[in-house]
């Protein structure tokens, strides 16, 4: 099992969610985050005070998938989240050792 973590532009969230649903993925976790990569921030001015703000709002999606689904999930996220502009985001894949469905106690593949 793996966790696929994707940092994407906030307005792409609905498209990515729909793309994952059509693959049969029916659960994911979303967090609002701030970050930067190659996309530059902006300058905020409050009377005399100028701030160069390099952290931009992004959305982080985490979804647990069986190992054999990872490539399809990555492909779906990439095609849904891509705009072609700097700041589209990144995808990280991490090993997942164990998973449990709290309500029923099902474990590992049955919990995903």
């Amino acid at each position, binding site marked *: 099992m793996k966790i696929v973590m994707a940092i994407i532009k906030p307005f792409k969230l609905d498209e990515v969610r729909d793309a994952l649903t059509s693959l049969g993925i029916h659960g994911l976790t979303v967090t609002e985050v701030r970050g930067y990569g190659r996309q530059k921030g902006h300058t905020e001015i409050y*009377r005399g*005070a100028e701030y160069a703000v390099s952290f931009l709002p992004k959305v982080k999606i985490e979804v647990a998938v069986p190992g054999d689904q990872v490539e399809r999930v990555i492909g779906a996220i990439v095609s849904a989240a891509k705009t072609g502009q700097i700041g589209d985001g990144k995808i990280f894949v991490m090993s997942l050792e164990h998973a449990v469905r709290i309500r029923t106690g099902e474990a590992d593949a049955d919990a995903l």
Partner: protein
Amino acid sequence: MTFAHPVRAGLLSAAVGLAAIAGFADMALAQATATAPAVADKGDTAWMLTSTLLVLLMIVPGLALFYGGLVRSKNMLSVLTQVLAVACLSMLMWVAIGYSLAFTEGSPFIGGFAKSFLAGVAKDTVNSGGTIPEYVFFAFQMTFASITPALALGAFAERTKFSATLLFALLWGILVYYPIAHMVWQSDGYLMKLGALDFAGGTVVHINAGIAGLVGALIVGKRVGFGKDLMAPHSLTLTFTGGALLWIGWFGFNAGSALAANDVAALALVNTLLATAAAALSWMFVEWAAKGKASLLGTVSGVIAGLVAITPAAGLVGPIGGIVLGLVGGAVSFFFCTTVKNAFGYDDTADVFGVHGVAGIVGSIGTGVFVSASLGGVGVENYDMATQVWNQIVAVIIAIVWCGVISAIIFKVIDLTIGLRPATDAEREGLDITDHGERAYNM
């Protein structure tokens, strides 16, 4: 204004006429000197009751939200509490000794204790020389005495202990506000006798608060992380809301300083609209040209700068003169809040000096120019522009020196006794938690 009773209309007209002859330096200020009927006039009283409430609205929640939105969310409650507590403390001080020290005869610099706790003032006592119950005059002036120390707080917000701000309000009210109010607005006051004009408190309130704020900001020192950490306003939405309430309430502040429901109040109302709009646009366009964008904070700051600039002039200058004061006040305040503040590098959290101090100075000196009848003002007896402007400048300088020196002593005394600043860790954590044990937003 219509009168049910022609005799009362005649008496009021005679009162106004006599006051005009007596000299406008004495007239349209907090202390009217004309002969007056001994019975309170209902129209004047109704308006002055309303004006008192409007000025209270400026304090709560106007000023509180205006400043509160400018600080970081971890210090929001500290700003609200300081403004509220300082205002309430000032009210009790006012009834105890403030009203008496400011508004009774004594020396040119301070009055006496004859009216402590409103001694000798009954509910049917009419304001000396006026047409309103003295209770109303007392209450109206009380709101001025309460908002002025609260204004100063914004300059050293986010790094001053709650106890220090209370002690500041106590000492500063007595040693600075009451003397300067006495000097400017009481008939035996030094600056009143000099002929300096201050219709609604450009010197007494705004220059005073601006200087006290600046001195406080310098002595308390900069916020930890100033210049490095992000200290953006946590809610310009609330700052806008507070600013809007300040504008509405200011009609009580300015038009109420006519102490009557009359043509002077009407002039002050018109000026409080036009000068403010002019200053808002002035700041907005200057910022647009200088920084590339017109900001909400800039526009609402222009509103406040215009209100401050017209405060000493509201019932004395004509509408066009008011607009000029607004245009100049807005632009000069912008310059001070950006270029000058950054050049000197001091930390005035809410730009109390840049807006209240600077626009107050511009408006006070400008009043000397635009009160001229030839420029649309109400005119002054034996008016000579150079003399009047000089009198304005002298009054401004005296206020700055008195306030500056005594405020510095007060802050130093507080620093050496109970301390001004919280511990660095406490400041970083936020004054809401460390001074008040509360969190503003639990979301």
